[in-house]
């Protein structure tokens, strides 16, 4: 069987597994987004204990490998009596991990907003909370798009780690197929190609979004 025949024959099965990959990524990035914004706000505006907690969390998660975090959830938690399915342990590990990274991106974006913006908001009688909601966050969301796109693409790729805890995503599917036909190189070439396409499409979409919400007159 030529490479293209092979690729053609395994494609449908791989695509089905790609859906799991995308689900995993999509849900994790969303939970991570929420967590990230909260952590960033906690680090910037929180009181001492909140700041310390958020900082410790972000630093520790970013300082340790995702695979180890995944193992903690999947293999580690059962030893204290908590059993979660492969999919949910991957989801938990990815979301908590991504939250820490996204927190840093948001913090950077918020910090690059000049202090005068908040001052102006307060001067017309906005509370600190309203200033954050109506002035700081809308600007930070735009500024954060480039680094956030990177994070999304990282997460798509790192979702392949879920294979290590038996989640039937793209990588795992490739491994199963390869173990049947022994044409490992070609199978993973196809797998790599699918990841490549996902990454290219996602970056295109995010570029479009960035262009769309750009503030007129402001250079990036």
């Amino acid at each position, binding site marked *: 069987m030529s490479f293209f025949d092979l690729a053609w024959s395994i494609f449908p099965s791989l695509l089905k597994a790609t859906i799991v990959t995308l689900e995993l990524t999509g849900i994790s990035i969303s939970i991570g987004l929420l967590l990230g914004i909260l952590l960033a706000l906690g680090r910037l505006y929180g009181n001492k204990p909140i700041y310390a907690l958020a900082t410790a969390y972000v630093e520790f998660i970013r300082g340790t*490998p995702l695979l180890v975090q995944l193992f903690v959830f999947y293999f*580690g938690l059962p*030893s204290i009596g908590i059993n979660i399915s492969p999919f949910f342990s991957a989801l938990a590990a990815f979301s908590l991990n991504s939250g820490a990274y996204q927190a840093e991106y948001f913090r950077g974006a918020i910090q690059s907003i000049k202090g005068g913006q908040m001052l102006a908001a307060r001067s017309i009688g906005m509370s600190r909370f309203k200033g954050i909601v109506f002035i700081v966050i809308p600007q930070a969301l735009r500024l954060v798009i480039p680094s956030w796109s990177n994070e999304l693409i990282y997460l798509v790729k790192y979702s392949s780690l879920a294979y290590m805890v038996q989640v039937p995503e793209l990588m795992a599917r490739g491994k199963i197929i390869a173990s049947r036909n022994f044409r490992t190189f070609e199978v993973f070439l196809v797998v790599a190609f699918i990841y*490549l396409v996902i990454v290219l499409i996602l970056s295109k979409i995010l570029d479009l979004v960035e262009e769309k919400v750009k503030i007129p007159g402001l250079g990036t």
Partner: protein
Amino acid sequence: MEDLILIWNSLPALLKGMLVTLELTLAFLGLGFLVGIVFAFGQVYGNKFTQTVIAIYEKVFRAIPALVLLFLFYFGSASLGIKLSAFISACLAMGLRSSAYQSQIFRGAIQSVGKEQMMASRSLGMSQFKSIVYVILPQILRLSIPSWTNEFAIVLKDTSLVYALGITEMLRQGRYIIARTYGNSLLIYITVAVIYFILVFTGSKFFSFLEKKFKIPGYETKEEKEGVRAV
């Protein structure tokens, strides 16, 4: 107490694994540096063809998950009849992957140093090669330290992925300890995580020390300038 004894007893094996982890980090970063810096210059000073090839190389290696690369280089090459050891396969996969990221870091630095520096050194009669070695390189290496620190942390953490190839680095040592002792796996993995954290933390501190040490007095980096302009 029992827990503490378990951690204490597993430390020698984990530290042995840690040495392998560090070796791998060094090998990946080293290969990535050599290829990356050559490609960075190729992209800035090379002809159109060179630029295109390097651009595609970068894109491909940055878009494919590390785990897929590891599989291609280890299990994949074997299926093609090429016998590579797990260590060599890992070096190729992760080293070349890192080169794609490092080349981008260095390219950014080369571009921020700007054409003027090159022009100035060429005007003194230096060759392009000499200009690169004596004028451009010393500047871009300094400028790259912050992003390079980041790359170091990523590569160090991602050495854990070679677990999948059966290399006994730190994470696999942890797994073996759990299998041997039926010990508390949560505890072992958290210990592993803490060791990683210490490595990443110390490494980053070391690089920011280097950054301060080699800082050019009065020299503003491009990022700093842009930071002021943002918004």
